[in-house]
């Protein structure tokens, strides 16, 4: 701090004219810079989900053991090019997710052997024991992994869970479901047109 340091009070109080200009400039630039950073972060947060028609950037997902894809514990999104990809964001603490868990699993089982459709479960902000409990409880068999560092959910700019993204064979986002599915038919109704493309 710029407290006076010299002895004997009368001499020690030279008349100063406020804060030096250069310090003022630095303070204001720092303050504004900070506000800009927060504002941009906020704008991104407010942007909302990825829009249909956009190409999904590539990402890697590490999978829970027992929920691997063809025996591998890590997958790249780009390796599913040519297939219809259903990306479901969920969390064990998320109650609406439970409403759709059985429907998703049942839909997955009807496509599993065709090799044309892949389901990916992405566990958002969760703890592993709870997440595994959830997967066991709903007998989920499609590949599932944690969203480490919330990187993937940030790609998709999800607003919450559950959210489900349907990506066509060209890797473009086709449809976004915000909130739970109410029936299995709803899921098929989205996938079937994409398969016929």
């Amino acid at each position, binding site marked *: 701090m710029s407290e*006076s340091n010299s002895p004997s009070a009368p001499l020690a109080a030279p008349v100063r004219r406020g804060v030096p200009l250069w310090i*003022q400039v630095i303070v204001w630039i720092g303050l504004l810079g900070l*506000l800009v950073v*927060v*504002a*941009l*972060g*906020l704008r991104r*947060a407010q942007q909302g989900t990825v829009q249909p028609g956009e190409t999904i950037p590539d990402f890697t997902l590490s999978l829970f053991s027992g929920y691997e894809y063809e025996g591998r514990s890590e997958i790249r999104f780009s390796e599913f090019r040519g297939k219809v990809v259903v990306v479901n964001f969920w969390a064990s603490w998320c109650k609406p997710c*439970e409403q759709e868990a059985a429907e998703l699993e049942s839909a997955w089982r009807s496509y599993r052997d065709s090799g044309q459709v892949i389901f990916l479960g992405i566990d958002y902000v969760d703890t592993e024991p709870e997440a595994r409990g959830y997967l066991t409880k709903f007998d989920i068999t499609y590949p599932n992994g944690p969203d480490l560092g919330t990187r993937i959910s940030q790609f998709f700019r999800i607003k919450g869970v559950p959210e489900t993204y349907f990506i066509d064979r060209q890797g473009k986002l086709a449809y976004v479901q915000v909130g739970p599915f109410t029936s299995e038919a709803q899921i098929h109704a989205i996938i079937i047109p994409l398969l016929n493309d």
Partner: protein
Amino acid sequence: MLADFGFGILLVTFLASLYSIVASLYGHLAHRPKWVESARLSMQLTFPLLTLASLTLIYLLVSGDFNVKFVYEVTSRDMPTYLKVTALWGGQSGSLLFWSWLMSAFATAVTLRKWERDREFLPWVTMVASITIAFFLGLNVFFENPFQRFWQTFQGVDAYTFRPANAIPFAPEDGRGLNPLLRHPGMVIHPPMLYLGFVAYVIPFAFAIAALITGRADDRWIRLTRRWSLTAWLFLSLGLVLGGRWAYDVLGWGGYWAWDPVEIAAFMPWLTGTAFLHSVMIQEKRGMLKRWNMILIILTYSLVVFGTFLTRSGVLSSVHAFAQSEIGPAFFIFIGVTLVASVALLIYRWDSLHAEGQMHSMFSREALFLLNNLLFMGILVICFWGVISPLITELVTGSKVTVGPPYYERAAGPLFALLVLLMGIAPLSAWGHITLKNLAAQNGLELEKRYALAIAKLLWKPAIPAVLVLIGLLAAGITNIYALIGLTFAALTASITLYEFWRAARARGRAQKEHFFLALWNLAGRNRRRYGGYIIHLGVILMAVGIIGIEMFQSETQRSLAVGESIQLAGYTVRYDSLAQFPANDGRWVTRAVVSVFDKNGQFLTELYPRYDVYSDGQPMTIPGVRSTLADDLYVLLINWEGVTSQIAPFKVYHNPLVNWLWLGAFVFIFGTLIAAWPEAEREPLPAQARKTKTVYQPGD
């Protein structure tokens, strides 16, 4: 309809707070005290009004009126009544209302006092408090109305504040219910404690701004709000500790603090608040650090609002985050405007806030307090960088890179250790004064050397126990260098602090012919802030010991056990005895294991009952079985990832040495704060210059 009534009250309260802002400003500018008085009364009116609004919402919650969206979101029929009441702060809109309610309670309390000597502060304190209340109420009125109801229209069901055309009310059968993780006593009081801490800091901030606007450069604003700062600090500390305890009991990861952005958001105002608590003493005693105190209180207020913003705007992902909503931009503008206005005011008044005193030496009390402040600011910078860096990396590289606990531990750990050491050395500077004079009489040594000599002379006795502790630790085979440094510092600081109590009480006992304990009692009564502060320091040291224990020496293991099998950890043997599954009377489905714990000699110690609860809505919760002693906690979890059967069950066991000292320290800490904050008759303050010349020291000063 009751919900409409509630919203009406909110609207009226919002208008009252707006009126209060305008009236206080006009009253001051036009020199009409009646308008200022009217502004004060109108601000005080917000408290009964908000009480009514909150009671209305609580009534709706308890009566289970699921037509109201907020009630549907945070309660369900099977919840006990006390949880329905506390669900008030279980969701975004209700907690905002709760925030405003507490804020207006504090603002009302502070304006009830007599203002004769400080009348010029009144309009500005009223204005700052009213602006804050108006902002939070505005969020409720325009963005997050807790009284929104469900309406059925041709388009379907949605929530609206006002009835849309041709709509009929819609009430779901049952609500979604509170997240079971939040159904814990610790969680019931953790948020209100934090909110109380947050809102109480608005009071010293309001007075600081009043002092800046009026140009009153003395320490009156600090003296007026001293107890508010302490209260705010106590609640904030309690909120943080309760949050940690809740995590330890419920989250089932064996820890208490995860450096989550939202934890840090609550921790940052605590850091500046703690620095403020220390540095105001220098302004009171020496008339120094005036500008610094202004900066600290402005920072604290801004961080309080910033922390609330981080949690509620969806800028950062976190387990604590509320559902995203539209209030982010409003918050951002509010932070920007208040921060820019405060800094501009501070720059405008910079000159009048010059120091009255001067720093004598590196070892003087002022210098040590300043060092303490710098350490707190260092930790703040580390925390702030950790929180803000994902936003910056996102700008630069396009993806958020979140820093984890290792970053914070490595960067802030040494600073915490230095703080502990400083906590021990700083009291020496107070005695240093007396010793200094004796030394000064002896020879013409330089001031620096005299200070250093004085401190060394006082240090050697309390240093003996610390050296003994170090030897003991080495003898026990502890080789972790960080733990050795940390525990030695803690021992040194504790022994200096205790020595200080003993020394002062003995001196007083002799001088006043009092019994030692009576002298101790009177001593604490005579200078509550100092001795309360020392007790707080002892509490912090106990907490530090607990933190060192769990951070450096925690060990864990996990395995599936068949009945009769056992698992070993840190000399303990945990044997799986049996398993039972049964419904609890509140609808939970409980899976409870019985395990026996033996020590390393095979001696039976206790039985533990780790549990796995599944709520009726399907959400699970892992409750550990804990054997807790002063030496360590044995923390046994029944985990459900491979499926529990009565024959085989997977267990995870943590050994957490010394962790109980953390909670014990928290109690000492609270006790110390209560002593420091206990009201004493307000003495007429002397001007700083006059006090500086006072040379009469009583024992214990």
